[in-house]
Each structure stands twice: as structure tokens, then as C-alpha cells.
């Protein structure tokens, strides 16, 4: 056992309850100086809640906490920051209406004669971001930058704030490999300086790449803390989900599907969003979309679904030309769309899980034909069971569910409409290993039933596993299409990285 002086942060018997849920049940957590400590668990296990209790964002119901050997009880996050705890909370928690520099220095802006010294602040902000190889205009609003850049800014802010402890709650969900590597370099440097670092993620490779120890939570309870080196992957997964996982990700990908394309998009595009592209989708086919952040994958999906109206090109289904000018029009053609930004475009927070699941179906039926309550209950229960959505009951407001479970509920919303073309934008982002595997299995079973899918993902392995074909995007244009033998992770990476000239498929 360790003596307490080796621990920079020790939390004992932390308790936190929400109405109807016991989110944390007497959890112990010890963080040593100079270690990276991964905090793992399924969606809804209580990881974020533990973080929020440690940083004063929630008042804990019980338990105690020592920081650097002294009793610490941050009343709010401001307090925690003063104590030297820097945190990146899950879902980018920065202010889109402030400038990048203001976000970085909020609450501790440099001052001259009592006034904020904007010039110095901006200079310091540029210096700070330079460490992250980010050269952007720090005087612009944060909202004008992509999620990835925002994420880096959030990390930079937290690192700068952390004198003793740095907490990263799923910081890598929207970063690509290059940025992750950069983040790890910084984390290692901080570790050498003797900081304690808590790292939450669902990417197990990253866990093994960076962490020294691993603590696993399940259903709000502590399962155990182990040295990363002593814990193999299978065992770790078993700790997390409480059973063995049959298969994680298929290694072999599905074969190309023959036959006439059902969906035929020609010269489809919108100026300023995505260059005109051609796209065919057959029945029973999964078309993957690969590309770097900001390459235009989301834009492609939004145009296909009518969230943005296309300003050029045609769309045909089974040879007849169709109108896709609005989401309603697309839904009428039996399209479905799970957006990337769950919080702002997916969930309807205050509505219950049941209502969120029936929403699209109800919208399609029109307001005059309400789905009878019994039918709603049946649908909701069915999908809660089928997708294993963890919720106290179907009437719980969806915003109180953990992120992964929200994602599954949105998926259920579209499955309930029995779509023929389902567009999924980053369906596995922020989802735990168990659910990840389930969603991939789901994608495959939907394909086998003859549904067409378009799936956007930043995880290339995953794309290779379930796609019959992969479209590669770069700089807001479709640049390559890979299938059959060409469909390997290596080829995709090559296509993404090719700097100039459009690659022949």
C-alpha cells in the first residue's frame, strides 16, 4: 500500500445521488504524483460525476478528499482552479461567444492599472497555443473554429491552470491521431513535472499508450485499481462491463455489394459547404466516409439529409428523381440522420427517453395522428432493451442520461421510423467499448436486413470493419473511393494524406 504522502489527490468514500440514481457509491480514488491515471468504465458508470464531485461542480453527498495531504473541499470550480486542479470537462465546455484568448484566460486576465490588458493577453494566448502547434487568430470568437480546435483550446486552458492535478474527461473524442499524439507529448511533460493526471477515454489503445494505472468504475461503484502494465485488454474489458466481450471489432470487412444503386446522387453539392460530388448507394450497403476533421463529411451528410439545401445536382431513388430540400422531405423518402453534435442537434433534453425515441416517427405521422401511449411505451421499451440503453426508466429526461446512452436513444429514434437509408455521423463517438461493439453489430445487422447506410467516422479501423465501400474526403471535396481489396486502413490513410491531385479510385 502507498503512504498517503505519495498521493497528490486522494478521495475516499465519495457518494453522490441523483433522484432515482445512485451515481457514485462510496468510491475511493487515489492519484499519485507524476502518474497518468486512466479512469474507465461504461457509459453512465459515473466517471464524469466523480470528476465533477472532485472539482466542486457538484456538491458531493458524502466522503472526503485530500489534496497534497491537506483536507480540500472546493466549493465550486473556481475554488478548484485556485487549488491547482485544471479540468477539461466532457463535451467542450468553453464559451463560444468569447474570443479564444478570453476563453484561455477567463478569470485571470492580465491587468494593467486595473484594466484588462488585452494586448498582453492576446500575446500570451498565442504563446500558449504555439506549444500546441496551433497558429490561429486568438482575437476571433471561439465559435468560428472547429470542434477540434476548440478541444485543443480547452486542453491548453486546463493545462495552464493545473498546478497539481490535470483532469481530462474524454479530451480525445474529437481529435485526430496527430493531435492526440501532440496531447500525449504534453501530458508526458507534465507528468515529469510531478503533476497527477486523470485521463478518461473510451479508446483503449490510448489508455495503454499513456497511462500508468487504471481505475474502473461500474454502476457508480469502484471495481478496482490496477497497474496498466499488469492488466491485459480482455481483463480490462471484463472489469468494465462485468462480463467477457465476445468480439471487439471484426477484422475482416464486408464484401462489396453488387446490383443497381438504389440511391444515385449526381453533381450534388452546395457552394461554400461541399464541392459537387457523385455518390451511389445500393441496398444492403454501408458507405463509409473518411477524412480529417473539417474535411466536409458532416456537410455531405447534412446536404444528403436536406439540413442544408443542395444548390446543385440531382438525387434519384430507384431511378425516380426526388426532392431532398428539407429534413422532412428526406424523411418522406425514408431517410434517417443521427447528427454528430448530440447535445445541440440530437437530443431534446427535457423530454423523456420515450418521447425522444418516438419523436421522428410522430413528426412523420403528423400531429393529428398521435401514437397511442401504449404503442409509445412498447416502442421505447423495445429499443431500450434492444440497444441496452441504461436509464432508470423510460420517463427519465434524456439530458440526465450519460452521453453514450443519449447516442443510443437517438439511434433508436431513427430505427423506430424504419428508415431505408440511415446516415450516421460519428455514431460511436464517446461510446464505451461494450456499446461500441453493439453499435457496430447493429450496423451490420441493419445492412444484412437490406438497409442502406452512410456512416461517418474518424476511426478508420472501424470503418474498414463495417463498410462495403469508403469515400475519402479532403478540403470539402470527395477525393477517392475505395472498395474490395483496396479497402484497407492503410489505403484510407494514404488517400487522406495525399497532398495534391485527386487520387484515382
Amino acid at each position, binding site marked *: 500500500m502507498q503512504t498517503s504522502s505519495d498521493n497528490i489527490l486522494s478521495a475516499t468514500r465519495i457518494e453522490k445521488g441523483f433522484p432515482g440514481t445512485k451515481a457514485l457509491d462510496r468510491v475511493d480514488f487515489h492519484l499519485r504524483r507524476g502518474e497518468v491515471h486512466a479512469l474507465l468504465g461504461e457509459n453512465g458508470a459515473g466517471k464524469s460525476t466523480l470528476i465533477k464531485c472532485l472539482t466542486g*461542480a457538484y456538491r458531493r453527498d458524502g466522503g472526503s478528499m485530500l489534496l497534497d495531504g491537506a483536507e480540500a473541499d472546493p466549493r*465550486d*470550480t*473556481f475554488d*478548484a*482552479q485556485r487549488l491547482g486542479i485544471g*479540468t477539461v*470537462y466532457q463535451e467542450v*465546455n*468553453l*464559451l*463560444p*461567444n*468569447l474570443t479564444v484568448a*478570453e*476563453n484561455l484566460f*477567463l*478569470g485571470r*486576465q492580465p*491587468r494593467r492599472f*486595473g*484594466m*484588462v490588458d*488585452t494586448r498582453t493577453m492576446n500575446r500570451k494566448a498565442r504563446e500558449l497555443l504555439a506549444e500546441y502547434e496551433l497558429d490561429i487568430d486568438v*482575437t*476571433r*470568437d471561439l465559435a*468560428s473554429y472547429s470542434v477540434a480546435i476548440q478541444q485543443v483550446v480547452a486542453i491548453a486552458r486546463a493545462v495552464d491552470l493545473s498546478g497539481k492535478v490535470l483532469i481530462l474527461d474524454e479530451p480525445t473524442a474529437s481529435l485526430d491521431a496527430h493531435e492526440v499524439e501532440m496531447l500525449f507529448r504534453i501530458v508526458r511533460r507534465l507528468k515529469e513535472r510531478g503533476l497527477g493526471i486523470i485521463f478518461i477515454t473510451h479508446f483503449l489503445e490510448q489508455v495503454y499508450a499513456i497511462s500508468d494505472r487504471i481505475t474502473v468504475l461500474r454502476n457508480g461503484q469502484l471495481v478496482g485499481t490496477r497497474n496498466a502494465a499488469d492488466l491485459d485488454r480482455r481483463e480490462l474489458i471484463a472489469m468494465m462491463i462485468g462480463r467477457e466481450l465476445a468480439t471487439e471489432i471484426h477484422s475482416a470487412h464486408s464484401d462489396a455489394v453488387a446490383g443497381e444503386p438504389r440511391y444515385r446522387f449526381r453533381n450534388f453539392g452546395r457552394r*461554400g459547404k461541399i464541392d459537387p460530388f457523385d455518390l451511389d448507394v445500393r441496398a444492403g450497403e454501408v458507405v463509409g466516409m473518411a477524412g480529417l476533421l473539417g474535411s466536409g463529411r458532416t456537410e455531405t451528410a*447534412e446536404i444528403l439529409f*436536406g*439540413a*442544408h*439545401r443542395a444548390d446543385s445536382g440531382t438525387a434519384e431513388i430507384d431511378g425516380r428523381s426526388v426532392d431532398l430540400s*428539407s*429534413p422532412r422531405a428526406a424523411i418522406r423518402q425514408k431517410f434517417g440522420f443521427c447528427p454528430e453534435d448530440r447535445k445541440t*442537434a440530437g437530443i431534446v433534453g427535457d423530454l423523456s427517453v420515450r418521447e425522444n425515441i418516438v419523436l421522428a416517427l410522430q413528426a412523420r405521422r403528423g400531429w393529428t395522428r398521435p401514437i397511442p401511449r401504449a404503442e409509445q411505451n412498447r416502442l421505447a421499451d423495445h429499443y431500450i432493451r434492444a440497444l441496452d440503453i441504461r436509464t432508470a426508466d423510460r420517463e427519465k429526461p434524456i439530458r440526465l442520461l450519460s452521453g453514450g446512452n443519449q447516442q443510443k436513444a437517438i439511434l433508436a429514434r431513427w430505427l423506430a421510423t424504419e428508415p431505408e437509408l440511415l446516415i450516421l455521423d460519428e455514431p460511436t463517438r464517446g461510446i464505451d467499448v461494450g456499446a461500441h461493439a453493439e453499435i457496430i453489430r447493429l450496423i451490420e445487422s441493419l445492412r444484412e436486413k437490406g438497409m442502406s447506410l452512410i456512416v461517418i467516422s474518424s476511426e478508420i479501423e472501424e470503418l474498414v470493419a463495417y463498410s462495403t465501400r469508403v469515400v475519402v474526403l479532403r478540403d470539402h471535396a470527395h477525393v477517392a473511393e475505395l472498395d474490395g481489396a483496396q479497402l484497407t486502413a492503410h489505403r484510407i490513410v494514404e488517400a487522406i494524406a495525399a497532398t495534391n491531385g485527386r487520387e484515382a479510385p
Partner: protein
Amino acid sequence: MKQKYLPLTATILIFVLSYALCVAQYPNMLSTRVIGNLLTDNAFLGIAAVGMTFVILSGGIDLSIGAVIAFAGVFLAVVLEHGGMHPLVAFALLLAITTLFGALMGAIIHYLEMPAFIVTLAGMFLARGMAFVLSIDSIPIKHPFYATLKSLYFKLPGGGRITLIGGLMLFVFAVGILIAHRTRFGTNIYALGGGTATAKLMGVPVAATTIRIYALSGLLAGLSGIVFSLYTSAGYSLAAVGVELDAITAVVIGGTLLTGGSGFVAGTLVGILIQGLIQTYITFDGTLSSWWTKILIGLLLFAFILLQKGIIHLSRPERQRA
């Protein structure tokens, strides 16, 4: 040019354009008198609107300011005329009261998690009710110090005047701009407007900031009340009815979003001037009946908003979803 200056620029553009149009029709409107009047007559509204801008930037609203102005006037009249207090002492006392009143509303909004709209609506009833209780009569203020203050003005060529209160308004705007953009408190206000939950996670002292915002609004409403009492040399419990709506309108015309987090204090000044311009134009015209006056004010308001939307829309690459 930066995206976020667009609404402000649009507003200034619209103001300059419409002033030019007015002058083309009534050349007299270019006189220094009109310009001086624009400042003096809108001084109390402008000062209150600065407070309102901060409140709206933080995502809140303050419906109590008109009533607080009325209360201030009656309070001053009562203590000056019946209490024999020196005006400066009375001013200090009054500002302390209204600041406290605002802080109290802020505390209720934050700690009891009640919507600002309702808390300040109750505050409006309370403030005007207090004014009634102090005196239902209108009371003239005849203190010589008032006459002294009013004699302080800067005469412009052509008969116009920049009065003390007009100058005070410009000063308050200047201070407001400094607070908004050059203090941590200012940034915190914008932060609250960007999202309370996020601001809290980022370590913004939400409670203190909320209370200070409404306290500031109360302070400025009190100051506006002092200006109003100087302007009319009287205290009257029915004064300044609906000023909060005028202030909100000015703030919004000035390009600040009612949802909070985005806008400029300087924009509010232009908003005030635009409203003043509309009124001046209507008086210069002088043919409109009571009802056409209202209809025209409504339509011009609509036109301004539409124009602003149009300018912003045309000059911004689209970002919204369908």
C-alpha cells in the same frame, strides 16, 4: 472586418442614412439644437439602457428600471423638499438604495433560480408601489442646488446646448464600454450570456457576477432617476412608465442579442439615438394623429430590425442550418 462588429456597423450605417434622409426633408434637423436635444432628452433613457445592456448581455432582463426611476424621483423630492437634506447626500443615499435593490433582485434570481423576467417584474411593482406610498402627488423640487446643476451647460453655436445630463450620459456610456471590454467583470458578463452552466464550470463566480450585474443595473437606474429628476425638477410616481421597454428596444436595435452573450454597449447608444431620431422626425412632421404616431413608430421599429437583419445576412457567409 470581424463578424461580431457586423450588427454594430449595420446599426451605425442605418442611423447615419436615416439622419441624412431626415435632413433632406427638414434641413432644420441638422441644427445644433436638435443634436443637443437628442443627447439631453435621452440622457436618462441612455443611462438606464447601459445597465439594461449589461443585464441583457448576461442573458437576463430588468423590467424594474422605469419604476426605479419613478421611485428615485419621488424619493429625492420627498427628502429634499420635506426632509431638508442636501442633494448630494440624497443622491448618495438614493444610489445606495437602488443598488441594494438591484443586488437583492440579482440574489433572488441566482439563489432561488427564478427567471429574471418575473423577479424584476415583481421588482417593478414594488418600486412603483413604494413611489406611490411615498407620495402620490407630483412634488416640485425647488432646491437651489438643482438650479446650479442645470445652469451647467456648454452652449453650441446655433443655440444648441450640451447639458450636464447629456454629458453625463456620454460619460456613463464611456465607462460602460470600459467595463464591458476592459474588466474581468465585463468578460464574466459575456461569459454568463454564453451559458450559465458552462461559465460556472469554467470558474466564473456566477453568484457574485449575477448579483453585481443587477446591482449595476439598479445603480444606473438610480442615476437615471437622478438625471430624470434634474430633467424635470420634480418627483412623480407615474413618471417613466414603460421606460424599460424603450431601453430594451434601444439595446436590441443596437445589435445586442436578447439571448445574451453578444453585443456592444456602444450599439445601445446608437439605438437610443435612432429612437430619438424617430421621435424628432415625427414631431417635425407634426401631421400625424395619435394613432398614426403609434403605428409609424411600430413600423419604423420593424423596418430597422428588418434592415439590420438584411445587412447582416447579406454580408455574412451562411452558417445556419435549415
